[in-house]
Structures are given as structure tokens and as C-alpha cells.
């Protein structure tokens, strides 16, 4: 597929749009349908599209595997970290209300960070899964 001009051009145009949409779903998760999980999957689909058109080598150059592993772990840490910060501030685990002066603001901050963690982990793991399987077949 590397030489197909139409695909290459279309991917170049589509990928940023997909990523933008992923970010929209991510950060509007607390107002509208969406959230970290969906955003992570959409984000990873952009990378998958890139890997399919430009090949595994290019995709691995774009995002090396160690970055993905780091992302997957950091996402979980972010999630658990918010919970622990809430505990340190005197609330129960994952009680966002204590994160800011005002409970409502705290809830907003809390859920956005949590969803960011979820999004990071889901996106990394999805791409990692794809890479793991794609490498098995060794595409030429």
C-alpha cells in the first residue's frame, strides 16, 4: 500500500482530524457522551491508519514502543494519583470534591484528570496490541 498516492494523501488529511475528534471526545466527556475510553480508541485508530498506509517502520518511528509502555503505565498512575491526592486532602479515595475550594470545581478537575488517565492508557494499550500482532506477521 506504500505507493498508493490516494491513500497516502487521504491518510495525511484524515489523521489530524481523527486526533482532533479524539481530543474533542476526551475533553467534552464531562458534558456530553464520550470520555477517556472512547477518546483513547479513536486516537489509537489514527495511529493504526497511519501504520496501515505507511507501514510498521514509519509507525514505530512515530511512536516507539517504550513510549507506549510508559503511556500505559502513566495513565493508571494518573488515575490512582488523583485518588491518592483526594485522600491526602482529607477526603475518601477518588472524592473529587476536595480537590478544589469549591466542590463542583473539584468534581470538574477530578473527572477531567481521571479521564485523561483513562484515555492515555487506552490509547497506548490499543496501539501496543496492534503493534504486537502486526509484528508477528512481519509486513513487507
Amino acid at each position, binding site marked *: 500500500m506504500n505507493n498508493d498516492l490516494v491513500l497516502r494523501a487521504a491518510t495525511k488529511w484524515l489523521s489530524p482530524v481523527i486526533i482532533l475528534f479524539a481530543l474533542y471526545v476526551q475533553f467534552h466527556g464531562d458534558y456530553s457522551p464520550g470520555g477517556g475510553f472512547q477518546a483513547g480508541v479513536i486516537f489509537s485508530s489514527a495511529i493504526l491508519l497511519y501504520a496501515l498506509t505507511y507501514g510498521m517502520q514509519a509507525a514505530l518511528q512515530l511512536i516507539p514502543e517504550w513510549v507506549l*509502555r510508559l503511556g500505559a503505565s502513566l495513565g*493508571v498512575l494518573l488515575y*490512582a494519583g488523583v485518588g491518592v491526592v483526594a485522600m491526602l486532602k482529607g*477526603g*475518601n479515595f*477518588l472524592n473529587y470534591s476536595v480537590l478544589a475550594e469549591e466542590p463542583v470545581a473539584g468534581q470538574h478537575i477530578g473527572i477531567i484528570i481521571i479521564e485523561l488517565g483513562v484515555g492515555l492508557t487506552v490509547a497506548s494499550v490499543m496501539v501496543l496490541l496492534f503493534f504486537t500482532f502486526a509484528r508477528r506477521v512481519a509486513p513487507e
Partner: protein
Amino acid sequence: MNEQLTILLVVIPLIAAPITALFKNKDIAWAITLLVSTACFVLSVIIMLDVIDGKHVIYELGGWRPPWGIEYKIDALNAFIALIVSGIATISSIYAKSSVEHEIDDSTIPLFYAAFQLCLLGLLGIALTGDVFNLFVFLEISSLSTYALISMGKHRKALTAAFSYLILGTVGATFFLIGVGFLFAASGSLNTADIAQRFETFAHMQLVETALIFMVLGIALKAAVFPLHSWLPNAYSQAPSAVSVFLSATATKVSIYALYRVLFDLYPVQYWVDMLMPQILLSLGCVAVIYGSYRAWQQVEMKRLLAFSSVAQIGYMIIGLALLNQNGLTASIMHLFNHAVIKATLFMGAGILLYRANTTDLGSLRGMGRDIPWSFAAMVIAGLSLIGVPGTVGFITKWYLLESAIETGQWIVVVTIVIGSVLAIGYVWKIVESLYFRSSRKVHIHAVESGDDSVGKTPIGMAVALWIGAGLCIFFGLNTDLSFDAATTAALSLLKQ
């Protein structure tokens, strides 16, 4: 006691696992795991001491009130299970260091420990939560990490064992989820206490009965109750030794615990007594004891033998549950603990044999016991406990189980226990005979990596862990107060007496 301690049991492994996965150094990964398990163990002991007299500790996650939010409600039973899980995790992590280095590739060791911690997290979560959906989530966390752990076994067969467990485990978890969904549709709640309290208002719905059947089937699959046990022997015998130790002692026990919760806390006892469930469970338990013991006796490979013996021991727990009186239930709960200690010790012994002779095939291990007298002695102690010799933990449970069976006039159970014990003598003797009384056999050169007969020395960590296990078998066989008090309090709270 500060109730924030309870959530730390889940939070500590949750934070430590991703950090462990980031390290490349196997020693650091091991040290973190040991630290995490020990911390969880200490916390469990603190919580246990707090609730042993029948008190509750309640923790509302995220500050949301139940029944809307997730609630952790810790009583003696929760704390007892958490204690078993974290205690065995500590022993297995002491044991794991040399064993894991021997069996698993260096580059995957940190990931192995991360998965181990996630498994610990899931099992502890199941033990703590008072919310049925949350229970499902933790069940999946522990199961998914278990599949990964089993697949890291030394032989390629581990992959098929892990895969068939993956399929069956997922079916089990899905059944449980369907049950939870039905119950949610009927009751509009996921909180155990809330569902139980308002049970009368929706008890007439057919959906509620279907939900119970789905949930019990799902959990029975995860707990390897007799006809649904087929994944267990392969999974336990192919997994890396440290994983066999940890899983055989905790995974099925925690599922049995979930069964107690569903049957006694979620549903009124009378409801499933009318469905003839005690009779069904009782017969399955009896068949499991005889079938499991018989199959164990047939095996020629030590880890498989022990795995089939687990099927039989799970039968005893189910019998204790199905007898539906205080002694039976106490015996069942105590057996969770006793069997965890016994089976962990025996699997540690099998792991040491695998480490030193590179095989667990009883035929190839002939005379091996004379080369490792101390480890062998520890294994014999655990073996005697498995049979139920007085002075060991196994005796205590069998005694209460017999007492309870005679009390209720279930003579078939009495006969089953006697036959089960005789068969247990048979399969434990099989191990002792080939390890100690048979003439030694030179181990095939190709079976040992160094080219020597066998590895000359048992690593100190493995020996220490083995002897801790054997020591506990004797200690809790002679001092029954702690485990008996905890089990009695737990049984009384389940029976609402």
C-alpha cells in the same frame, strides 16, 4: 482505626503495579512486590484485629453515599479473606525470587511482577467490596492478570492452558455479569446490603431466580466446583511455580467467598433452599471430593496431582456451605484458610523439585526426597495436613465438618469424608513413596541445564517460604483460636444469628 486503611489495600498495589512495569531491573521489581505484599498483609492484620469481634468498617468510595456509590463494608469474613490473600502473597513473593529467575525470561520478569500485583489487587478488591458490579470488575482484573501469569509458564503447554482458562474464565465472568444485570433490572441497585434489604419488594419476579442461577454458575466456574473444574488441573500445573503457589491458595478461595456473599448476603437463605440448591451443592461437593481425590491418585506428575487434590478440597468447602448450619459453615470458612496454607506449601515443595531436578514427574523424581531431606520433611507435614492427621490444620476442618454432618444426619457426607481421606492417604503416599522409598534414579542429563544430576542447593528464599508454610500448618493445627474465632464470627454474620 482509621477507615482510610481499608482502601489502601487496593490502592497500594494499584500504584505499585504500573511503577513495577516501568522498571527493567528484576531485583527492584521483586523488592517492590515483596514490599507491597507485606504492606497489604500488615494492613489486613490491623483490619482483622479491628473487626474480629463482629464490628463493621464502612468505606464510601469517592464520598458517594450507598446505594448510589460503591461501598466497602468490612466484617470478619472480608478481613479473613483479605488476610489469607495478602498472607499467601507475602509468602509467595519471598518464594518467587529464585523460582521466577529460573523459569521466566529476564526481560519479562518486571512485567510478571506487575501482573502478580494486579492479581493481588483484584483478589483483595473482591474480598473488600460490598457492591456486586464492583465485584465483577475486580474479578476481571484478577482473572486477566491470572491468564497472563499462567501463560508465562516454562513449557509451551502453558499457552494452551492459559487460553482454555481464558475462554472458560470469561464465560464464568460473563455469566456472573448477566446475573448482576438481571438483578439490577429487577432491583435497581447494585449495593449488596441495599438489594438484600429490599428483597421482598421484587422477590416475586422470575428474573431474580434466573439471576441467581447465572451468578452461581458463573462463580462455580471460577471456583472450579466439580463439573466445572476442567480448566484447573492444566492451569495450575503449567503455570510458573510461584504462580501455582499463589493461585492454588487464593484464586478459587476468593471465588468461594463470592459464592458465600451471593448466597447468604444477597439472597435470603430460604429463597435458594426452596430451589433445592443446598441438595444440589451437597451432592456436587460429595462427588467432587471422591472424583478429585481419585483423579489425584491416578496422576503421575506432582503438580497435576496437587491440582486434582484442589478439586477435591473445594468439594469439602462446598459441602460445608451446603450443610447450612453453624459448624458446617465455620468448617467451610476455616478450610479456605487451612487449604490455602496446605496447598501453598505443597506447591512450594513441587516448585523446589522443579528448580532442582527440572521435572515434577514422579517417575523421574524417584529417591529425590533423600537428597533434600529438609524440604521433603516440610512437604510431608503439609501432606499429613492434607489427609487430616490430628495436630495439623487439615484435622480441624474435617472434625468440624464431620460434627456438622452428624448433627444434621447427613450420613452420606460422613462416608464421603472418610473415603476422601483414605484416597488422600493414597495420593500423599504416592508422593512420599516415589520421593523417599524408591531407589534413586539418575536424572537424565538433558533434563538438567547445567549437565549435573540436579541443582545442588535450594535457594534460601524458597526454603524459608516452604518452612513458613509448613510451620503454619502445625501452628494453626495446635492453636486454633485465631482462625476459629474469625471463622465463627464470619459464619454467624452470614447466618444472621
